[in-house]
């Protein structure tokens, strides 16, 4: 196992190919929960955890069931099914085992199924032929990158509450422009690592 490669994969998926700022996925959630720091942090933790596990699960199903049976054309249906089933069961288990944690993070779990990143990561893993550990590293990096984006955005939007924004731009439009400026900053990371 090549640890440098894995580390590079984590860094590149978190910073250089950040899902939010360079691939534009997960925007609905990104704009939805970045209003407050607290929700942003909760979402990032839950999301990263779900991301890693679902990347691993889909890799196993893809390599050991779908590829031998020549069912790879069904990958969209199968991956969304895996993610939905995993999120649903995580929800149920958490409620039973740790109600305190569920009370804090349960809300975000339900939201995760509508996040495009969660389906994009298994699809990309399958497309790039990553091995098991690479898939997990990619999932971890993507989760961290999404968390980073959420936290940056939340900290700016909290300040924005008191700013004097022109009426038509209040709410979403100004957030988009903000995200554009952050994305511009993130282009600075390109070329940090060449894979």
């Amino acid at each position, binding site marked *: 196992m090549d640890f440098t490669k894995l580390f590079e994969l984590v860094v590149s998926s978190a910073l250089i190919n950040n899902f939010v*700022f*360079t*691939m*534009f*996925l*997960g*925007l*609905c959630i990104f*704009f*939805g929960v970045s*209003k407050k720091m607290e929700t942003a942090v909760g979402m990032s933790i839950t999301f990263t955890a779900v991301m890693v596990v679902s990347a691993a699960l889909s890799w196993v199903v893809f390599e050991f069931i779908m590829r031998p049976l020549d069912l790879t*054309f*069904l990958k*969209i*249906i199968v991956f*969304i*099914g895996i993610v*939905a089933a995993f999120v649903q069961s995580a929800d149920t288990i958490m409620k039973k085992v740790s109600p305190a944690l569920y009370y804090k993070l349960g809300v975000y779990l339900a939201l995760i*199924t*509508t*996040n*495009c990143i*969660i*389906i*994009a990561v298994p*699809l*990309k893993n399958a*497309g790039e032929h990553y091995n098991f550990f690479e898939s997990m590293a990619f999932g971890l990096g993507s989760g961290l990158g999404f968390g980073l984006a959420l936290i940056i955005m939340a900290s700016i939007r909290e300040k924005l509450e008191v700013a004097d924004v*022109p*009426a*038509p*731009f*209040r*709410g*979403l*439009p*100004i*957030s*988009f*422009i*903000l*995200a*554009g*400026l952050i*994305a*511009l900053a*993130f*282009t600075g990371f390109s070329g940090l690592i060449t894979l």
Partner: protein
Amino acid sequence: MSLQPKSNWELIKNGMFGENTIFRMAISLCPSIAVTNGMKNGMALGIAVVFVQTMVNATISLMRNFIHPKIRIPIFMLVIAGYVTIIDLLMATYARPIYKEIGLYIQIIVAFASIFARAEVFASKNKVWSSICDGFGMGVGFLLAMLVISFFRELLGKGELFGYSIIAGNPLLIMILPAGGFLAVGLLMGFFNWVDMKYFGGKGASGV
């Protein structure tokens, strides 16, 4: 949804303007930025969405009396995923060059909030024909939004439209960069809010 039944044309119009997915409801935003750096890509994804949205609405509406409410979410997901697979395979075969650029985003249609929302809010409660109209209107509304955004981005960022050069000289490179997508959507959204406030007395988009 309002209680009195709407005519089919009203349903289509509502989807196109009144509840425009991107500018008014602000959902399914990911592709609005990802594939709008050229009008060709924007249009391809828009057409894919029109197809999926219409077919999903029609199917869900046909099955609405057989689906148990408790398991409706997985069933909706499967129906959507089925149609997305169809359009994905079709585009991979017949529109290879475009598919290479936007293939991932075609597959991502499966996680679109707007398609799921219409199936849940409208198609599972209404007759087939009005569901088809509603889905078509929503899809076309999405297509229009994609065309508007990509029009500005391609024109300003490359000086081209559909790949034909229109303006000579140095284009604004930032508009086709990722950052430009956010800026374009933000500015357009602000502009539509402004028009709505000034001429129609609205309160602007139901911003998050």
